[in-house]
């Protein structure tokens, strides 16, 4: 496959270089730093729509050729790899040992592990498995002089030095290109099941509460709006018995335990379900469909975080926010993804977003001087131009400290300038 020579990052076209080794990537960073050029890190380019457009002229550095397995001591349940490796390739390597890095990624055959880390990708299984911060054991990053700097290590437990890896997860590459990492792994489960539960609109809260106290221990507790449920069914090749909101509950583990949980869930939800429950047992396609729901859809995408107990309320607001909308709420974490085709001729996107953002503040915290609560980020904005206020909202208390960290680690503002929060 020939590598693209140019890439369009939110309307800014940059020339892309493809270093073949970590050393070469380091040399390119060094050269760019000398020349005063900015560096835009590129992985599989599946999520360059996140954050803000580049502000300074510069080059793209693509990590895709860095895709070696450095060390895979399977019986230690860890793996060390280069981060230009695609998520699908890692999955394949790990499947050989019946292991997995259980982080959902919507476009695994293109997305790289570096990109997954930089965007802190996660999906439905986060309820049972956590997120990348729970799996990253060690990380190597190229610094602003082009030198590799590592933190953490290759063992599952280690507190030597600052946990710099955490800083880079979700930093959108603003603190340097990520080139190598060690991950903790999980055994693949013997069996899986997804249960799709139709819900009447007035039963959503009851469903959420029940899932918080029921006897089962799901790895997925999602709420899907009608649009999202339809999309899920389409991707999974299923027909929905009924339109409308659905609860989606996932289990995995020993076969006996999964079966017991399906039965128990059916019993517990008997009075709640608005119709026939669709059970998809060890159905790989259904899991792929669920993961794919996290990919870009509609003209505009939003992602929000609230207290778990507030997620049903916000999910409802997001459902009616725009035509052709879809909403997937991860009820355990209070993380909600939504898409749609909003009409911006009547009200600009910023106004719509700010109204929703206000709702993302938990009711009981809304009137406190320092809102501790929710947030809402515009992941994709269609034709609307993006700026920090629209995409991220107003600055929080800890932003000056983040800016200071950025100044310390990247004083020349080489790495992805302008692409994250103001000042980062």
């Amino acid at each position: 496959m020939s590598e693209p020579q140019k890439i369009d990052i939110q309307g800014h076209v940059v020339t892309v270089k493809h270093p073949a080794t970590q050393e070469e990537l380091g040399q390119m960073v060094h050269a760019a730093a000398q020349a005063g050029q900015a560096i835009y890190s590129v992985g599989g380019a599946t999520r360059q729509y996140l954050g803000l457009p580049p502000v300074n002229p510069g080059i793209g550095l693509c990590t895709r050729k860095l895709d070696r397995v450095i060390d895979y001591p399977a019986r230690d349940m860890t793996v060390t790899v280069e981060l230009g490796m695609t998520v699908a390739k890692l999955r394949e390597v790990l499947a050989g040992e019946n292991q997995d890095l259980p982080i959902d990624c919507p476009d695994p055959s293109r997305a790289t592990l570096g990109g997954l880390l930089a965007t802190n990708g996660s999906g439905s299984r986060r309820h049972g498995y956590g997120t990348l911060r729970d799996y990253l054991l060690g990380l190597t990053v190229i610094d602003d002089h082009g030198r590799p700097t590592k933190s953490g290590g290759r063992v599952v437990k280690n507190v030597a030095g600052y946990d710099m890896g955490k800083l880079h997860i979700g930093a959108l590459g603003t603190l340097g290109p990520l080139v190598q990492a060690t991950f903790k792994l999980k055994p693949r489960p013997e069996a899986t099941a997804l249960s799709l539960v139709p819900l009447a609109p007035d039963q959503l809260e009851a469903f959420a509460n029940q899932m918080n106290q029921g006897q089962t221990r799901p790895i997925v507790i999602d709420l899907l709006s009608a649009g999202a449920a339809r999309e899920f069914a389409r991707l999974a090749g299923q027909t929905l018995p009924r339109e409308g909101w659905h609860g989606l509950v996932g289990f995995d583990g020993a076969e006996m335990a999964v079966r017991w949980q399906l039965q128990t869930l059916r019993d517990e939800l008997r009075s709640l379900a608005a119709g026939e429950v669709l059970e998809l047992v060890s159905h790989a396609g259904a899991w792929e469909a669920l993961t794919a729901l996290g990919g870009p859809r509609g003209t505009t995408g939003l992602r929000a975080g609230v207290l778990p107990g507030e997620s049903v309320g916000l999910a409802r607001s997001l459902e009616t926010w725009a035509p052709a909308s879809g909403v997937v709420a991860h009820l355990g974490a209070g993380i909600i993804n939504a898409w749609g085709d909003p009409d911006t001729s009547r009200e600009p996107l910023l106004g719509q977003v700010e109204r929703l953002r206000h709702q993302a503040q938990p009711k009981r915290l809304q009137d406190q001087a320092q809102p501790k609560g929710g947030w809402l980020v515009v992941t994709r904005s269609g034709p609307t131009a993006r700026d920090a206020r629209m995409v991220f909202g107003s600055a929080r208390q800890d932003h000056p400290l983040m800016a200071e960290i950025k100044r310390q680690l990247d004083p020349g503002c080489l790495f992805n300038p302008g692409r994250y929060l103001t000042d980062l």
Partner: protein
Amino acid sequence: MTATLLDEKTAILITHLTKIVGPDGLISSPAELMVYECDGYTMEKNRPEVVVFPRCTEEIVGVVKACNELGVPFLPRGSGTSLAGGCLPVGGGVIISLARMRKILEVDIRNRYALVEPGVINTWLTNRVKNDGWHYAPDPSSQGACTIGGNVATNSGGPHTLKYGVTVNHILGVELVLPDGRVIQIGGPVEEAPGYDLTGLVVGSEGTFGVVSKVWVRLVRNPQSVRTLLGIFESVDDATRTISEIIGAGIVPAALEMLDNLILGAVEEAFGFGFPLDAGAVLIMEVDGLETGIDDEAARIESIALKNKARKVSRANTEAERMLLWKSRKQAFGAVGRLAPSYCTQDGVVPRTRLPEMLRIMHDISKRHDIRIANIFHAGDGNMHPILLFDERDPAQVQRVMEASHEILDTCLKLGGSVTGEHGIGVEKIDFMPKLFSPDDLMAMTRVRQAFNPTGLCSPGKMLPTAGACSEPAAARQLKPGRRAPH
């Protein structure tokens, strides 16, 4: 600096601090300060000028600002159970004890979190929510004494972190008094607010980024069922091979702890659990989860143990038996006093498959240096706590303990591991940092510290070999093991 000048400065400091915390909120007499010369790591000591006991965030801010004005170093302290000298006041100054900030401010089961003050003792939180069927997962063996603030600073682990993760996996946010006195909230009860994961960075920063004044922790539902097995082995080798095989088989036990013959004797004398005194080692193996299928999992573990020549595998039949077994494990350190007048606990980590090899090397190190080493540790993580037994009064023994410790930790590195799995670098392992990390790695960490702690007044001489004031390396060298630091 002459003694009188020093005293004058201390007098000004005390006046300042008294205004903030009141006369009953601080101590400064040498007799009272003695307790604060060291923490659970007793090989180095130094006396602070003052210990203050703030009651709220505002008082911490006042103390921190006063220290900045006078150019006096300061450091936070929880219960002082650190085993790495995290609370050693290198260069003297002010210790900010969080012992009076012990309120559980909020418990929100629906939203799966609690908000606590930093001085809350780890077990108090679980005790508070257990009747609702929830708990706070990180369970260091010192959990009856150590504080959540200290756990955050050291990123503590415990027996059950094998399955449930260490402290950082359970911290949602903190309120932090920065080293210049600013107060900021990082993270909070809502997950993943946009921006860098500063919470993840602050956890494990060993008090060098400021004073944690509030903590939002995640609460976890209790498992439906638990099975606790005790495997009895003729040799350490059989026990460690069992551990490697359980992990290699893709089983994720809730806990997997090993006790060797030496420690068994002491523990048995203290708690009378009924451990066989002639066993080479025992393994405490716990699985938890749904009742359905749990006995199958326990049976798989049992058969792996038997295949590896376990003499016997028994189950804790009652909750009381299980509690006694865990008490014997968690309070084992308290029993070590029965073995020798002094001991030094190490905290090395190796990849789990290298455990048998590591334990064999350790046996050899023990023989060569003529230092008895007891082993009790979180085996499933590959995290070992060899306890080196000695008599502090014999300088030759102290020297041999140091040498043996270093050899153990060097071996961990050689096998691809780390010098600390949960106790931290503190002052104790600072010399190992250049072995673990390149100068460029350390520079990146130093730059991050600069962002939080540019003057280096907060916890100087910890974690990074070159950080903070430039006189520190020399100061640290003066504090060699076994000697009291010049005051």
